[in-house]
């Protein structure tokens, strides 16, 4: 008996066929991978399954009955729970309140029984490796712990189907293992899991079956073990397998473009910030991609933010093209030709409600306006140039950025940075949360930009991306530079070895 059946489901939005007769089956106790590039229709399919959208054609069958979920609440009550990519809980409320919201245990008077709620929350969360005080505000927990609370909540509602949308994107490796433990437990209890992720290693570690979508259509569904990894990637991308093999895992060309003789375009010396950064120094030459390596909390993002003027420095010198950037502020950093792509593009980067055109224009306004008036013609010219150059896929420059796929949002952000005409580009996790195809495009763009003479600083927690994308890697640990990898030493093995070397003196 199938737990959940999707039969020829279609969903049409104005101008787009987001889902075109997609079918797949989820068995009880099965961990089913749902993969595809951004825009392939995964999110739409999830929203159809969870009652956010109504299908325009086809049929859902749940526990052998035709099913129709009018609202997310309907789906939840039927036993279909979802944990979303970004934690969807209320940060200002306590951990226990978040866990029980809407289902709080009540006293005979109908009031919430706080003691019981806290006690039960503690018991439940211990099973998920979360030992924090349940009366604390959820927002004070680490992201991984918040995700576990979300998962615990999803499972608690007597779920028969749990849909996980990129559950590991904000987890540490140790937390990923805890999550997998929980998934195996759910599997044993006969709960069906739909698992959406871009991380192939994880899929092969935890999933039984796979469904691949591309451009809203089903391209493959079946046992995952029968599907070779390279075949999976080529099905997702719709590219030739040989081509995928030849190109390697990332789209970086692998050839160094930096001119080792040229004067550095960015020189950072002895940056210090309380207990976060200690004497961090490095150079970037024009055309060079310098990677910042290290574990979470090593000071990579802080370094990038500090150079961009958005993080407090106690001391340190920053030079751009030989000129001293004193007392960096974001505005002064831009004036000096420093462009920063922040780690969290949603919170710090783009303005989702504004159009592609407006987002790009934000950065260039100072250049195209005269006496405070903006020349529309000039803006259009610049916007069109970047849309074409960065291959941004939008229905028109007037489409809201929030409606674009993650990869295209990232490209809009890049366009905005480039429109300020920078000399140095600081990229913090430029490919996080975007699909394989868009990742490859962003990676080759970084290569191209460096080849044009920009100095690039790259932070990525994907070691392969960091190593293949960088000409040199500066390795940080606990805010200290512990080594620099150059030439043939830029390998994941050397990176790991450097991170693992003896603690700093």
């Amino acid at each position, binding site marked *: 008996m199938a737990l959940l059946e999707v039969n020829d489901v279609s969903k049409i939005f104005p101008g787009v066929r987001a889902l075109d007769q997609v079918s797949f089956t989820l068995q009880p106790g099965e961990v089913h991978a749902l993969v595809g590039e951004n825009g392939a229709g995964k999110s739409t399919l999830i929203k159809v399954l969870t009652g956010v959208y109504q299908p325009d054609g086809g049929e859902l069958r749940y526990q052998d009955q035709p099913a129709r979920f009018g609202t997310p609440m309907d789906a939840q009550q039927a036993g279909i729970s979802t944990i979303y990519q970004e934690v969807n809980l209320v*940060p200002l409320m306590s951990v226990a309140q978040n866990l029980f919201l809407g289902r709080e245990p009540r006293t005979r008077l109908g*009031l919430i029984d706080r003691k019981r709620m806290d006690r039960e929350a503690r018991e439940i969360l211990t099973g998920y490796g979360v030992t924090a005080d349940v009366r604390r505000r959820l927002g004070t927990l680490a992201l991984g712990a918040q995700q576990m609370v979300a998962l615990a909540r999803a499972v608690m509602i007597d779920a028969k189907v749990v849909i996980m949308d990129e559950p590991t994107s904000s987890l540490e490796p140790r937390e990923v293992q805890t999550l997998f433990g929980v998934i195996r437990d759910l599997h044993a209890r006969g709960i069906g899991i739909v698992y959406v992720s871009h991380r192939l290693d994880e899929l092969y570690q935890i999933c039984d079956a796979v469904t691949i979508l591309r451009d809203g259509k089903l391209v493959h569904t079946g046992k995952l073990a029968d599907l070779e990894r390279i075949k999976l990637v080529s099905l997702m991308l719709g590219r030739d397998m040989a081509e995928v093999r030849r190109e390697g895992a990332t789209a970086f060309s692998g050839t160094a473009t930096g001119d080792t003789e040229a004067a550095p375009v960015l020189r950072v010396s002895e940056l210090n910030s309380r207990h976060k950064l200690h004497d961090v120094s490095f150079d970037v030459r024009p055309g060079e991609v310098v990677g910042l390596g290290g574990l979470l909390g090593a000071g990579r993002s802080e370094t990038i933010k500090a150079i961009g003027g958005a993080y407090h420095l106690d001391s340190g010198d920053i030079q751009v093209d030989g000129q001293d950037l004193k007392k960096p502020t974001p505005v002064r950093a831009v004036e000096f030709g420093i462009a920063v792509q922040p780690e969290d593009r949603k919170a710090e980067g783009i303005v989702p409600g504004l159009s592609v055109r407006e987002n790009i224009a934000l950065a260039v306004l100072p250049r195209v306006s005269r006496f405070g008036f903006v020349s529309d013609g000039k803006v259009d010219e610049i916007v069109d140039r970047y849309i074409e150059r960065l291959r941004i896929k939008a229905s028109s420059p007037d489409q809201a950025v929030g409606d674009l796929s993650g990869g295209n949002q990232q490209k809009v952000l890049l366009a905005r940075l480039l429109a300020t005409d920078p000399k140095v580009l600081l990229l913090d996790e430029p490919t996080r949360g975007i699909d394989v195809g868009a990742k490859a495009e962003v990676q080759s763009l970084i290569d191209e930009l460096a080849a044009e003479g920009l100095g690039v600083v790259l932070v990525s927690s994907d070691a392969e991306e960091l190593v293949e994308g960088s000409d040199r890697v500066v390795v940080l640990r606990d805010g200290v530079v512990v080594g620099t990898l150059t030439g043939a030493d830029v390998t994941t093995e050397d990176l790991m070895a450097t991170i693992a070397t003896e603690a700093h003196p």
Partner: protein
Amino acid sequence: MTMGLASEPSAIVVEDVRKAERTDRIVGTVQRQGAPAVLIVVVLIALATFPNFRSLDNTATILVAAAPPMLIALGMTFVIITGGIDLSVGSLYVLGGVLAAWASQYGILAAFLLPLAVCGTIGVVNGLLIAYTRMAPFIVTLAALLGARGLMRAISSEGSDTYLVRNDAFRKLGNGSFLDIGYQVWLVAALVVIGLVVLARSRFGASVYAVGGSEDAASLMGVPVRRTKVWVYVLSGLLAGLAGAINAAKLGSGVTVLGTGMELDAIAAVVIGGTLLTGGAGTIAGTIAGVLLLGVIQNLINQVGNVNSNWQQVISGTFLALVVVAQTYLVRLRRVT
């Protein structure tokens, strides 16, 4: 391949989490207890400086004067915690008073039911528009402010007709007292206690916090977001109407010229009480302290005698600005660490 397999979180990260925890606890306490603490300090100073302040009469006066604003601020607390605002309550307060005075000729029950029915209906309309058409609460309730004021002027011939309360029972309710404390104070106290319990301990209260804390998350978690929003505006309208009615009972007439700016005083009291204007956090206890603080300041200024009473607004305004600055700082502190 992801980096840092087999990595333990570095000591720095752990230390940071602990620090964030501590900061959060301290900030939370200041946000919750700040207003009551300031109230106590102000009262202590007043006791030491003004000999008349300590008299039972004066206490009763402060409480009676604070009763209608307290009701309005009570409703406003719910609204602001959902992330909304209700500008219509000042107008509803006046309208409620006029309606109660007029209806008192048909008995004490009518004197309460008519303002509650009318103001409650306006609250329903506010809530429906805000919850279902996603119009900004500011605009919707501003429209209601103008509309309710217009209605009040229409039924009172441009505000020149003053309906006298002819029902003795109703008048007595406004002027009688139990244990030297006015009846209306007891009524308001009872409602405030109910409000406190509802907000802190009911599922509806939890929904109110969830809607203000993160509307999207609340909706995905199955919280009835729209229903919650409608209810807070209904509650706010009902309480404003009731405040108008008890004021009419006290004054013995439906005065048409009071109440302008009451909504702003209520918002000020709520914010001073530690409720975040952005929603998601706040307490009734804080609001009580906020209302009493403004009331005590007013009372002290009256006692000084030769000071222009407008100074009360200057002081309240300054105080409000200080609280908002402190709040902003506290919230930022919480985020940064």
